[in-house]
């Protein structure tokens, strides 16, 4: 018999809901079977903690006296450039932004010690941030410059807004060339020296609801230590990729756009990172509750690491050249064991997302729901699934090759 979200919420209010983590659900389904598990368990909690470059914040600093219009000017936060293309005192900062004087990869591999993601972490930690603005004056906004320290308590709205997060599965990166390379999936030693991966696997949100049947726009989630919401499917959402018999995508597939109040968040779950030779990124903690509405959902939430396959991709050539070759498919149980076999060679594996933190998030969310402080939401619109026909297109703009040649 199917359950509704309203019924589950009523149980949560009464403190009677049965809430388990995605790890615990594996054993429950193994022991009791899908039918019984679907009856007994109301909510499965998931979690992931990894680097998500498509993260950013926006905030409103309030109006200065006299007024200033940052929009159309330039704005820096701890010398990191932010976006000044909104209204007078709204600012957007992306996680990967770098100070203009950062040498990047000029001294290879670059170190990228401080960027947008570190500003976000410092802001969340309550630290003072140096704000520098230069702009033009108008009759209504006469002021042309501003230098000040601000912290999160000085701001009106401060909002985390990530356009792509919680990737449903992802590439395993290797290096087939004969020199070390530095990528967003870490340092890759030559000749298949190591294989790097980044997914919480069996704990990962979208791998536990592979067809997005319970989540959608408006779903309340754990985000950065506070409460957030799914606002849209994420950029590069690609639900139509090849899937296993269990419905689980075998490639990077679905993504989520998420939003939440930065003032509720904590640097425990939002962390600036420096990736040698690559740049700056933000590690974000996300947890999704999955209502076990029926046996099908109970089955999906019992997915195990060994049932989830990821593609192994050569980041020395195939990835940068956008070639489609996949060297092998490996499962997360093998990846998490610390060693996999590729092309007959034993290759050490390195995780970039923290399984320990993913587990902690799933447990925190479980406690929030059990204690009644977190109720589930019925999505107001679904996330597009394979039936939508949505595909992640490669670049199809028309390059102006002659112009480039002339310069």
């Amino acid at each position, binding site marked *: 018999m199917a359950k509704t979200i309203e019924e589950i919420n009523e149980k949560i209010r009464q403190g009677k809901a049965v809430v388990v983590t995605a790890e615990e659900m594996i054993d429950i389904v193994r022991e009791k079977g899908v039918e019984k598990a679907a009856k007994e368990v109301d909510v499965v909690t998931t979690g992931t903690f990894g680097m998500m470059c498509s993260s950013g914040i926006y905030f409103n600093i309030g109006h200065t006296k006299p007024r200033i219009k940052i929009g159309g000017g330039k704005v820096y936060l701890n010398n990191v450039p932010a976006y000044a293309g909104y209204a007078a005192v709204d600012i957007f900062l992306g996680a990967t932004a770098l100070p203009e004087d950062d040498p990047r990869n000029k001294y290879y591999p670059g170190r990228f010690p401080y960027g947008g993601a570190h500003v976000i972490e410092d802001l969340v930690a309550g630290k003072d941030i140096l704000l520098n603005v230069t702009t033009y004056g108008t009759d209504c906004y006469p002021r042309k410059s501003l230098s000040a320290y601000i912290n999160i308590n000085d701001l009106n709205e401060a909002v985390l807004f990530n356009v792509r997060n919680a990737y449903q599965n992802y590439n395993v990166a290797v290096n087939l060339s004969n020199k070390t390379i530095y990528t967003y999936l870490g340092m890759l030693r030559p000749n298949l020296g*190591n294989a790097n991966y980044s997914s919480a696997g069996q704990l990962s949100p979208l791998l536990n609801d592979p067809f997005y049947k319970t989540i959608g726009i408006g779903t309340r989630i754990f985000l950065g230590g506070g409460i957030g919401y799914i606002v849209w499917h994420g950029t590069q959402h690609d639900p139509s990729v090849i899937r296993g018999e269990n419905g689980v995508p075998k490639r990077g597939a679905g993504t989520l756009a998420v939003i939440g109040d930065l003032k509720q968040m904590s640097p425990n779950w939002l*962390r600036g990172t420096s990736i*040698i030779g690559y740049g700056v990124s933000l590690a974000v903690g996300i947890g999704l509750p999955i209502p076990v509405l029926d046996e099908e959902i109970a089955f999906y939430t019992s997915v195990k690491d060994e049932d989830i396959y990821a593609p192994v991709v050569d980041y020395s050539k195939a990835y940068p050249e956008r070639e489609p070759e996949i060297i092998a498919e490996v499962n997360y149980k093998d990846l998490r064991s610390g060693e996999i076999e590729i092309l007959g060679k034993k290759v050490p594996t390195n995780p970039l997302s923290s*399984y320990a933190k993913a*587990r902690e998030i799933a447990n925190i969310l479980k406690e929030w729901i059990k204690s009644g402080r977190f109720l589930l939401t019925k999505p107001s619109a679904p996330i597009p699934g394979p039936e939508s026909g949505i595909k992640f297109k490669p670049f199809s703009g028309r390059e102006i090759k002659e112009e480039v040649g002339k310069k």
Partner: protein
Amino acid sequence: MRTERVVLHFPKHLADKPVIVNLVRKFDLDFNILKATITPDEEGVMVLEITGEDENFQKGIQYLKELEVKIQPLSQDVIWDETKCTHCAYCVNYCPTKALKRDEKTYLVSFDPQKCTACGICVDICPYKAMEIKLII
């Protein structure tokens, strides 16, 4: 027998003198040089693993001290900041001496300074800057 990893700071006047060889000749100690460099201000820094009989070990260390070599255990110079570590375990397989380890049940990372040779790989690659080497090189 004992084995210890130490960091030696040589003053300028010793930079071109044979010192370590005397640990073998005079005190019958084995050594393994893990790292050696001369800083821009001509101070020598060496990370050394020394093995030998306890008594000889003490004498060898005393000999170095008399030459005004500053000595400290290596473990004081490599720091794992657990408040910064997110236990992603990214570093674990890069660590050549297994000083960084992941518990296979809890998936939590731990650091054993006694096994560390201060190679510095973890410092380069940790995205969270949780590893720090205070060795002045």
